[in-house]
């Protein structure tokens, strides 16, 4: 870990943030890709292939029975993984010692962490080599206990910033987030949309004005063109459903990686 100035003093920079800052400071755009943990026998190979294809960091989804921020694609992937016997324990066990090649963050819902116990959950992430964690149903108002535990254990809690947030709320989110600040690209749940929402550009711009933390936009980034457009105003994108759809379609690790390479190429060529 290293330290970075900005956002009101010295903050600890973990592996996710370090790699994203390096990409940004080198003039590039960041690409974080979501892979559903436990989906099929080859999800870990998929994660490695996604890293090789140019993702800067990977979100590993730990499936939850009631994912209220997720649209049909990730819901389906969740259900398939759960039906296949995936649990938080099997996923974290698989990650332990698996060198994926880029920093990892898990994305799951708060009850998974709450049920395990926040300390035990954070320690499990750390011992599995997972650097960060995204909990989309844990807003700032309820995040205190988790932020404390994450800081103690050294996990980067990645917070979301929504298009509906008033101006006064965004600096508070940016001050508490680690890794990056996850700008929610639209009013709605995860999933591919035909057009990039105007709100994606807007949230990226609003966040960039107030923070030095990497600003990534996710939710509704389904094509390389949309990724390029959203990245013009922020530091990069999170791509989930478009990639997960390929996992659901069982195209194999290389097939998934092919799409990720298209995003990488487009972001590099802009």
């Amino acid at each position: 870990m290293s330290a970075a100035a900005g956002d009101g003093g010295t903050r600890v920079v973990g592996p996710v943030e370090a790699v994203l800052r390096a990409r940004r400071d080198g003039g590039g755009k960041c690409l974080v890709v979501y892979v559903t943990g436990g989906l099929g026998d080859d999800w870990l190979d998929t994660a490695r292939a996604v890293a090789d294809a140019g993702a800067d960091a990977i979100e590993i989804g730990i499936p939850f029975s009631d994912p209220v921020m997720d649209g049909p694609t990730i819901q389906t992937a969740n259900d398939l993984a759960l039906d296949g016997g995936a649990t938080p324990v099997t996923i974290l066990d698989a990650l332990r010692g698996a060198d994926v090649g880029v920093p990892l963050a898990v994305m799951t819902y708060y009850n998974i962490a709450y049920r395990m116990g926040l300390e035990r959950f954070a320690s499990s992430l750390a011992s599995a080599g997972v650097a960060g964690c995204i909990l989309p149903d844990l807003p700032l108002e309820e995040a205190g206990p988790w932020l404390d535990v994450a800081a103690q254990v050294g996990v980067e809690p990645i917070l979301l910033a929504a298009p509906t947030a008033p101006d006064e709320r965004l600096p508070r989110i940016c001050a508490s987030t680690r890794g990056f600040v996850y700008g929610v690209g639209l009013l709605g749940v995860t999933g591919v949309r035909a057009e990039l929402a105007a709100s994606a550009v807007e949230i990226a711009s609003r966040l960039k004005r107030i923070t030095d933390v990497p600003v990534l936009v996710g939710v509704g980034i389904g094509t390389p063109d949309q990724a390029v457009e959203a990245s013009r105003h922020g530091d990069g994108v999170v791509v989930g459903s478009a990639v997960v759809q390929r996992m659901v379609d069982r195209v194999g690790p290389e097939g998934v990686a092919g799409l990720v390479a298209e995003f990488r190429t487009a972001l590099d060529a802009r």
Partner: protein
Amino acid sequence: MTLQEPTPEGRFGEFGGRFVPETLIPAVLELEEAFREAWADPTFRTELDALLADYAGRPSPMTECHNLSEDLGCRLLLKREDLNHTGSHKINNVLGQALLAQRMGKTRLLAETGAGQHGVATATVAALLGMECCVYMGEIDVKRQELNVFRMRLLGAEVRTAVSGSRTLKDAVNEAMRNWVATVTDSHYCLGSVNGPHPYPWMVRTFHEVLGLEARHQSEALLGGPPDVVVACVGGGSNAIGIFSGFADAETELVGVEPAGGAAVGRGVPGVVHGMDSYLMQDEFGQVLEAESISAGLDYPGVGPEHSHLASIGRARYEAVTDDEVVEAFQMLSRSEGIIPALESAHALAWVSRERDSLVGKSVLVNLSGRGDKDVAQMMDILA
């Protein structure tokens, strides 16, 4: 004790809170502020009281069940929420929330429904107030509550089938929340029970306190004081909290009756889903279990956070009854008193019937939260 306002963080003891995506936080904060302001405004209260009286038909009567009392050996009273317009207590809350939504400038009501009673109430009030209405209902419930689906459509609402997960009430809530995330600018989520994120558990309780207050006055008149026992069915727990609110300060025993297949208090451990920290049926990893009940309205693995609190401090107790006991009780009230109860309300009666020996000589008030017309088709199949 009387039922308290939750903490500023929306907690009843350790339960409650606001576990929603960031996108919805401004909406729940705005709702809380708007509710506080409206509730303190005599104009709002007068308008709501007028609708409750002239449109919903309040106050609802209290009926003494002379025939059943003789059979059971206790003095059995029913608070007749089944006689409200739309056939259940749900209208109290919907009138309150819809007026509030209008006041907040929202043009669309979004709701989830299990048995369809809350959906019908929402569709009804949307029609009255000229608002757009969209109701999510689980695919299984759409089939077993066909009549209510037709009712909602007749009233001009759009009924959307939730096909995810267990395809019952839990998933209707998920779909409604997903839709709310996308439509929060002009839609008000008219949540149907005392669950969800703060301020819903407290606000919905407040809108149902009218029934508890009436019941308190009516038992004073009938019994000369509060009853020994108050019994209500509990899914999310709105009718129960409504009637408990009238007797929490008395020495009355408060009993919530859950379905054996959806006993969040009885079988759950604290968990977070649908915006709240409350007792929840879940597995060792935190995956929410699917409830299984004959009654679509109680087919829910969670429970309102205030019930978790009342259970944890011992002010109310929560018991479970089986589907078979409910079917018995449904017929018992129909035959003995000429009142066909909702399957939900039949849970409370089933507990009274089962526990009759320990209730001998006591006065027992059951909240008859809804009428059974909607359940007749399902019962025809079950009793065939």
